[in-house]
């Protein structure tokens, strides 16, 4: 099985290598069949990597300890569930999972774009296979999951193969359901972002720098963003339940490593809207996509390299140099391409007013970047300071909180005020009228909180902002639903449903914003956390903030109860809980000692959650004759988990394909664009500056012929969507808001739509 896995990886490597060169050459020399053979080679690579993963799973499930990875990560007593998921519990296996996911996504991209985006695809495949090749190199030469177990001689050289009777065992802290899903979900996020990067590079190489690549990769970006975000929170949940220090976030380097690409991806998700709408910020978007991709790779690297000391770090390994080389070459290549294409990317559109939707997006981006940079700086500071002064200086969580809390609150504030701004330029009177009520109410709330004795400045600000943001988001829903109720005469709930259904991207986004409100509520709650430590004897009790815990009994045993199969010994405290004088059940915080390796201990925390607060009880050990109990009261933690679910819901709403909404969107855009060129030829009221169409047309690549999609709308309408064409071209009158777009009779000749793009035929 070891050999089969090894051979599969080698085959995959060969096919990927071929795919890289075939698709790149196919693209450069315009050889379509060569490029297609490259794409097929990637499918073969997918097949072989899948085979390798299957081999490793078989090895894990059959507990074949002749494989050193299986030995290091598993043992006979490990439950089958964890045996299967041990695939990603260690370095070698998790890198194999990376490769596997990447090849799967490559397959999906190929399937999704069959017959679409033809000019881009060869380069997309080349980038995907290039990245796959790098990871396969790691899988084969640096972190091979199929190495046989060898007995080593005194000089460290392997002497002979050997099958140990039992394995080393899985780290007990990883024996937690959240640990089973957290890494793959985070990986999904990391790996998926390779796809938008591949499209961005393809766009740079081909010079097709319009919205083609952003549209082709939109869903991938959203999925990646969603998985990253959800994965980060799941990791927090794991830490909260498993590590027993009463919190879920500690600015640990590995946590930071996953947060950084999420921050830049969030910035990109926002600024790409500006590109799609106004064709601005195109260079900026490229920078964001490239940076996010590099940060995704960097995150994978940071977890493994031991460059920065972290609780997460795997064994210090030899992966560092390989990753550094890959990161540097990719960065040089991508930014080099960007510099080369800079003249084509420049947009002539400009920001017009400080108080406008565009500028709020601009500041949003700026703040996300500042946040990302701060996190990067703080995380890498030991490395930087060592290089400069020779001392490794770390900055702890207080520093991150000091910098990130205000930045986070500013972003949050922007999120609340942005919906009040109009595109281009905000009419001060109307925006004042709509915002005066929430502003006044927020001020009242702030005064109230202060009067009630809340003295932490940031906490008061955060709660006030939560209210304000929730209000403005709610107002958007109410406003939209009311409009529908009037215009379409729908009852309230139908109107609300249709509103979200037909504008799923926008309102999905608002739902995510609402998730942020929940998250910020939860984060702020932690400012009021209380903790207390007590050493109790049987019958004694301790009090924390209205809770009273009395130690009733201490029980010990083995699990599973069969001595031959036992995985761990346990010892738990039986605590009787009284809340505000009323008995409220029993708590059983537990300590486990696993029976493998060095007999590691694991704390099983007991948590009582309510919307108001969590009671978090840890059995922290024995001091003499007494049992040490650590109790935390963490307010509003549930809101964080609720926010995570909301984030999924919101992202799902905006991802799920909705043909009806797409049609509606196209129609509305077309309708909005029509008055762009009024009979007098003025473009003054156009939501889309004249330079839009100009720069689209100017980008050389966009003039290349493309296959027309059968699903395209009638040409003229489609044209309206992407460009408010030069005013000399006659434009049809506004189409009535009916469900089927009517092709206007006076479509100019020589003006055809090509897959959502307009160009003048020769």
């Amino acid at each position, binding site marked *: 099985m070891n050999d089969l896995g090894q051979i599969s990886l080698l085959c995959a490597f060969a096919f990927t290598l071929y795919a890289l060169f075939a698709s790149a050459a196919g693209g450069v020399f315009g050889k379509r069949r060569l490029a297609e053979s490259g794409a097929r080679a990637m499918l073969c690579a997918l097949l072989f990597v899948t085979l390798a993963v299957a081999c490793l799973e078989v090895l894990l499930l059959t507990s074949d300890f002749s494989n050193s990875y299986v030995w290091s990560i598993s043992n006979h007593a490990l439950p089958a569930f964890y045996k299967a998921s041990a695939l990603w519990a260690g370095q070698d296996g998790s890198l194999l999972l990376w490769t596997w996911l990447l090849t799967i996504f490559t397959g999906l991209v190929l399937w999704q774009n069959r017959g679409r985006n033809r000019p881009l695809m060869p380069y997309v495949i080349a980038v995907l296979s290039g990245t796959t090749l790098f990871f396969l190199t790691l899988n084969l030469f640096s972190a091979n999951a199929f190495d046989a177990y060898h007995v*080593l001689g005194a000089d460290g050289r392997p002497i002979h193969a050997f099958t140990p009777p039992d394995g080393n065992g899985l780290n007990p802290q990883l024996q937690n359901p959240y640990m089973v899903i957290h890494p793959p979900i985070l990986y999904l996020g990391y790996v998926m972002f390779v796809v938008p990067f591949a499209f961005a590079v393809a766009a740079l190489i081909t010079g097709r720098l319009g919205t083609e690549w952003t549209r082709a990769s939109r869903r991938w970006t959203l999925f990646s963003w969603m998985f990253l975000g959800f994965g980060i929170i799941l990791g927090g949940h794991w830490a909260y339940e498993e590590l*027993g220090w009463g919190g879920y976030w500690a600015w640990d380097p590995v946590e930071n490593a996953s947060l950084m690409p999420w921050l830049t991806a969030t910035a990109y998700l926002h600024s790409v809207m500006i590109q799609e709408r106004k064709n601005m910020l195109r260079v900026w978007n490229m920078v964001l996509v490239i940076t996010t991709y590099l940060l995704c790779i960097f995150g994978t690297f940071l977890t493994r390299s031991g460059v920065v000391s972290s609780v997460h770090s795997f064994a210090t390994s030899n992966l560092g140099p390989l990753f550094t080389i890959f990161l540097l070459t990719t960065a040089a290549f991508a930014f080099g391409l960007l510099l080369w294409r800079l003249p084509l990317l420049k947009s002539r559109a400009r920001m017009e007013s400080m108080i406008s939707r565009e500028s709020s997006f601009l500041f949003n981006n700026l703040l996300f970047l500042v946040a990302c940079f701060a996190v990067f700086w703080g995380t890498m500071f030991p490395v930087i300071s060592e290089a400069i002064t020779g001392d490794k200086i770390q900055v*702890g969580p207080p*520093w991150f909180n000091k910098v990130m809390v*205000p930045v986070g609150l500013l972003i949050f504030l922007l999120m609340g005020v942005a919906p009040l701004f109009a595109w281009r330029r905000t009419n001060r009177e109307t925006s004042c009228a709509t915002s005066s009520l929430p502003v006044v109410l927020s001020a009242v709330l702030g005064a109230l909180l202060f009067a009630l004795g809340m003295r932490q400045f940031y906490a008061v600000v955060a709660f006030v902002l939560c209210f304000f943001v929730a209000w403005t988001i709610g107002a958007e829903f109410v406003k939209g639903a009311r409009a529908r109720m009037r215009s379409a005469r729908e009852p309230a709930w139908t109107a609300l449903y249709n509103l979200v259904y037909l504008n799923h991207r926008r309102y999905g986004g608002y739902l995510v914003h609402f998730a942020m409100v929940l998250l910020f509520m939860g984060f702020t709650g932690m400012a009021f956390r209380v903790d207390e430590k007590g050493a109790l004897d049987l019958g004694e009790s301790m009090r924390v903030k209205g809770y009273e815990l009395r130690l009733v009994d201490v029980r010990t045993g083995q699990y599973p109860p069969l001595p031959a199969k036992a995985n761990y010994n346990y010892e738990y405290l039986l605590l009787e809980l009284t809340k505000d004088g009323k008995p409220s059940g029993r708590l059983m915080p537990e300590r486990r000692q696993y029976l493998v390796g060095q007999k590691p201990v694991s704390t099983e925390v007991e948590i009582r959650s309510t919307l108001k607060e969590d009671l978090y009880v840890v059995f922290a050990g024995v001091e003499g004759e007494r049992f040490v109990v650590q109790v935390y009261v963490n307010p509003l933690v549930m809101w964080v988990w609720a926010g995570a679910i909301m984030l999924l819901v919101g992202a799902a709403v905006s991802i799920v394909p909705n043909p009806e909404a797409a049609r509606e969107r196209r129609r509305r855009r077309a309708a909005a664009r029509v008055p762009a060129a009024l009979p007098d030829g003025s473009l003054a009221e156009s939501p889309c500056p004249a330079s839009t169409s100009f720069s689209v047309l100017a980008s050389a690549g966009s003039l290349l012929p493309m296959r027309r999609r059968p699903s395209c709308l009638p040409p003229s309408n489609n044209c309206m969507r992407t460009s408010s064409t030069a005013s000399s071209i006659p434009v049809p009158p506004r189409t009535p808001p009916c469900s089927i777009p009517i092709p206007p009779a006076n479509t100019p000749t020589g003006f055809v739509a090509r897959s959502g793009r307009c160009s003048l035929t020769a």
Partner: protein
Amino acid sequence: MAPKFVVTILLLVGGVGYLAVGGFQSAKSYYVTVDEMYAKLDRLAGQKMKVAGVVSENSIAREDGKLKFSLERNGKVLPVEYVGSDPVPDMFNAGVEAVVAGFYRDPVFEADHIQAKCASKYEAEYARGDGTAPAQSD
């Protein structure tokens, strides 16, 4: 770009920069191993430090409710007294790689935080390869 934008952007970046620099002194700690700490002691005395080392065998003791142990690295041994309030991490045990944060108060290190490395131990074991089949049943 309009000057208004430039000014706002500069204000934002400057503000964050101010916070970052201002918060730095109170939040920084020197990351050293036990032997490095002794080597640099004249310079780092009184500074907040994070010291990494391996918990010495048979050194863990509890006296008057306080946890005491020592860390070693490259032949140097550092006695540590834990004065923090958080529970000691699960992985903390003799022979484990640990990082303690706090101040050196001659002759002991007063740690208010202990971090024990987990995952690494598992794989490092194999990488070191002691030449024998691991005895798992003891």
